């Protein structure tokens, strides 16, 4: 499965990831990864061996080559079998991210995109069951983004759980099976991209009397009028909580407001995102 973790800058995506891998400790509550609680720094070592992660930007020893960096990470911890398995995989992960030719160059001479690729290679080294990537396509050109997306899709199809944080909606929408939206440190929505979209459909209505229509709609739940000045007798209404266009129509007509036209607008994930992140119902 490919899970997209979406949120604006400062929403707490990286903080959540840091807690998941035991770099920082929650002041309250608990974290569980791969069915194991993440506690102090000692107890979660075995489950962390099954996690590959890139947190914020990738980091390497600049004076070592790409290959030597991966080898250093592979050798850094035991047990011996795990270490050897990772060492053997170094050429394989370099090939997966397309860095075979640059493998002998010092990382100090790498471009940002190359470092990003090496960061993903590092996360893949242990054939993880859970792959956590923080903004994986940062600094990549469109071609590179596409390659990484295809790679992640394939890994997910082969059974790896891929957890990708991003602020790029289009990327998440195109790639992920499930999306979680984080705002101000809270998960405000979660579901398949198609499900999330229905959370926030909107309609455009042409009414005879806008003032009266506003009054009526104001009394309905799951309805929010978006103020768009200069569009005459048109109102844009955002629907949520299962409120349908038909219900809005019925309410208006029964209150004596003439409805000239009603046009459903399919929401993009961007609309959903903005309504979730900026909506009044979001705790701040």
């Amino acid at each position, binding site marked *: 499965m490919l899970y997209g973790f979406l949120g604006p800058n400062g929403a707490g995506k990286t903080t959540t990831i840091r807690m998941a891998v*035991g*770099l920082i400790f929650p002041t309250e509550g608990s974290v569980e990864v791969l069915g194991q609680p993440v506690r102090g720094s000692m107890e979660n070592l075995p489950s*962390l*061996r099954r996690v590959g*992660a890139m947190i914020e930007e990738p980091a390497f020893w600049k004076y070592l080559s790409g290959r030597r960096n991966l080898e*250093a990470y592979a*050798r850094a*911890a035991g047990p011996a079998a795990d270490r050897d398995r990772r060492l053997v995989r170094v050429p394989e992960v370099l090939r997966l991210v397309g860095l075979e030719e640059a493998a002998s160059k010092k990382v100090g001479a790498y471009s940002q995109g190359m470092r990003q690729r090496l960061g993903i290679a590092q996360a893949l080294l242990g054939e993880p069951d859970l792959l956590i990537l923080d903004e994986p396509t940062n600094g990549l050109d469109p071609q590179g983004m596409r390659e990484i997306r295809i790679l992640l899709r394939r890994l997910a199809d082969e059974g790896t759980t891929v957890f990708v944080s991003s602020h790029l909606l289009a990327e998440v929408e195109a790639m992920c099976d499930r999306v979680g939206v984080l705002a101000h440190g809270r998960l405000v929505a979660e579901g398949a991209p198609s499900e999330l979209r229905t959370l926030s459909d909107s309609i455009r209505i042409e009414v005879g009397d806008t003032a009266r229509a506003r009054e009526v709609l104001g009394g309905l739940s799951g309805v929010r009028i978006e103020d768009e000045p200069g569009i005459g007798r048109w109102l844009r209404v955002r629907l949520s909580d299962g409120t349908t266009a038909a219900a809005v129509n019925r309410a208006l007509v029964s209150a004596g407001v003439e409805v000239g036209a009603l046009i459903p607008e399919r929401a993009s994930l961007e609309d959903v995102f903005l309504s979730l992140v900026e909506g009044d119902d979001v705790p701040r």
Partner: protein
Amino acid sequence: MFRVEFGKTFRRIRTYVLGGLLAAVSVLPVVVFATASHPGGGPPFFEFLRRSGLFAPLAAMVLIQPFILPLGAGLLAGESIAGEASGGTLRYLLVRPVGRGRLVGAKYGAVMALLGLAVLWVMVVGLLAGVIAFGLHPVPTLSGTELGVGAATLRVLVTGVYVLASVAGLAAIGMFLSTLTDSAPVATVAIVAIVILSQILDGLSSLHAIHPFLLTHDWLAFADLFRSPVAWDRITHGVVVFALYTVAFITAALARFRHKDIVS
């Protein structure tokens, strides 16, 4: 982890530059005394330098102990954790996952092993230069008797071990400081400042009550190995003080690092 640390160091050009500088320092007393027309006195061992090449590694120790070796300990230990933190590699090591206690242990082990290599290097280079310049002769002790080449060589080796032990406590302080900051230079400067402060306090006679507890107080006590019989008091006292500092600050580093939030 320890091997990785070691391997990384020997892939840095910096390591070889420092090795070259240390070699230069080790041959310096030999060159000075071999070429000077009126070799005078100086710190312990210098006045005897021409009598035997075995004195050359000791003279080199006297040169590196007060400042160069502490600086090396400060560089290595200060960088140990803070350097990985500022480079971002610390979080990847911890997620790899390297246990936090193990990381501190491996880093400290690597720092001490490298300092040990540095001491050995200085001694070997100094000895070679000394033997070439002045030959391998029995050495006079500070008490006026004479030591055979075999016995003297053994004491030179013990000197090396003592010098290494004397920076163990300092390196432990460095490890602790390195867990407090994400900036390696800050940790290094702090360590050097501690050494200087300790030496200043050691020089103030009105503070003689605290002198025995100062890290630097017994640093040059290895000269007592070249008395007859060997005067062990200060040497054993020194070893106890170094061990106490080491245990205290490694414990502090572990306690601090175990629960530290890594946000670098």
